[in-house]
């Protein structure tokens, strides 16, 4: 359902480098056709008659169909020296944009969906982690998340216990921080920027800010895309397609604390595009 709160959020609509290289992208946002292209030397986003505000950040073009309620979230690591910023590209998924974000927050599926890469039986236990809504920034955070991983990243050699932090800084965005295999004191940063085409269809733009100056970019992208295609086989087969915000339809456990917090946060803020409000 489109609410004023939904309209007043920023959403990704393109990869900035592609538009800057002269590509034009005809796409959709919240069911409304929009075009992203260069116009008088700047990136522009317009609909059939209106033009919309534009922001270029984290390698992507962001826009808002209403009047932006706030600035786009910050990712300070994006400006940290030594990090490699990688735009992965786009993956189209026939699912609710909110289900795509919720899946990104989920670690319990690693052994079953990303078998022998991000997880493996019998290491299936999800230890208790902490979840909070950060005041001020009003973001959902999950911290002290740990999980055993056979191959945590392209740069990882052998299994390690990976530490994670997750944040949801906008309704269709999630950013995670995970143990960097080559620099154990630093965090690798991986985000997904989800463009809601409709309530049941989205374009997902993964993005990374890594300490890894060895692995070729094509390999980093291929690794991330492989992971995401595994997720897509799940996301396109969840019933119902819309994310149920009312309890009762699905059965969460302690491992789902981040999903519970995310759903409550969406509901309280009226961010219901891609959500199912009443048990069907």
């Amino acid at each position, binding site marked *: 359902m489109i609410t004023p709160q939904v309209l007043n959020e920023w959403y990704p609509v393109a990869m900035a480098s592609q538009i800057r290289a002269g590509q034009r992208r005809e796409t959709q946002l919240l069911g409304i056709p929009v075009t992203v292209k260069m116009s008088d030397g700047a990136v522009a986003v317009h609909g059939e008659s209106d033009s919309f505000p534009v922001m270029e950040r984290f390698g992507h073009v962001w826009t808002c169909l209403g009047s932006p309620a706030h600035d786009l979230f910050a990712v300070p690591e994006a400006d940290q020296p030594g990090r490699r910023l990688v735009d992965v590209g786009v993956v189209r998924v026939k699912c609710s944009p909110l289900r795509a974000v919720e899946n990104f927050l*989920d670690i*319990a*599926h690693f*052994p*079953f*969906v990303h078998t022998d890469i991000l997880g493996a*039986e019998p290491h*299936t*236990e*999800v230890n208790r982690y902490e979840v909070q809504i950060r005041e001020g920034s009003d973001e959902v955070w999950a911290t002290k998340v740990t999980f055993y991983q056979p191959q945590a990243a392209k740069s990882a050699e052998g299994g390690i216990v990976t530490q994670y932090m997750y944040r949801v800084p906008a309704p269709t965005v999630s950013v995670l921080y995970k143990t960097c295999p080559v620099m154990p004191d630093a965090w690798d940063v991986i985000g997904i920027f989800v463009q809601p085409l409709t309530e049941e269809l989205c374009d997902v733009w993964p993005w990374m800010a890594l300490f890894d100056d060895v692995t070729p970019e094509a390999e980093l992208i291929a690794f991330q895309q492989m992971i995401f295609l595994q997720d897509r*086989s*799940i996301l396109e*087969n*969840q*019933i*119902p397609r819309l994310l*149920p915000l009312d309890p009762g*339809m*699905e*059965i*969460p*456990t*302690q*491992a*789902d604390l981040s*999903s519970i917090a995310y759903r409550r946060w969406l509901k309280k803020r009226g961010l219901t595009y891609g959500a199912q409000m009443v048990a069907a």
Partner: protein
Amino acid sequence: MTTRWIATGLSHDLPNGAVMAGQWQATELAVWRSATGKLAAWKDRCPHRGMRLSHGFVRGETLSCIYHGWVYGTDGGCKHIPAHPALTPPAAICAEGFACVEANGVLWLAPVGMAEDPPRLVDLRPVRTLSLTCDLATILGVEPALGGSDIIRGSVRIGGQDEEICLLVQPRPNGITFHALCSARADVVQVSRWLEALRRSAEEKVAA
């Protein structure tokens, strides 16, 4: 539509240790068989986060959901949650059951609590399942010797002999699926070819 048994597949297409997607009217189901051959059918939706259980995998006497690996016994009850290995899942966590029985090599589905048995198909044996992109009327038009609505029957000429054919109809959104049986003495390979020819003629008629 009334509550009745609907054929969802043939026994030989669901070996021990396998799971398949089934359908009863508009309800999508997961149908599976344990390692020792026990059958079960459930709504195709994991109670945890809604993943299709027909994408799951069978281990021994249990079916696991492919998303987070929740393990269900043949009675539908959740036996194990891998994220919390020490926890005994509450009895309330359970897949929504359907009745599934096997008769004459056919798998039949119905909501739980059906009083009658599935239709009895005497002297027939299973041949194969076929999906067609046309409707039932077109098929009956192509082969006037056949007649019926849920269960299509008739005697047709195959390989110089009159053979009894029985097609169990399973409606689909964009066509129809049949589970075909034939008289016990008929040559299954010939019947299978005859069915393919029937499909070709029916689909060509729609395209024309």
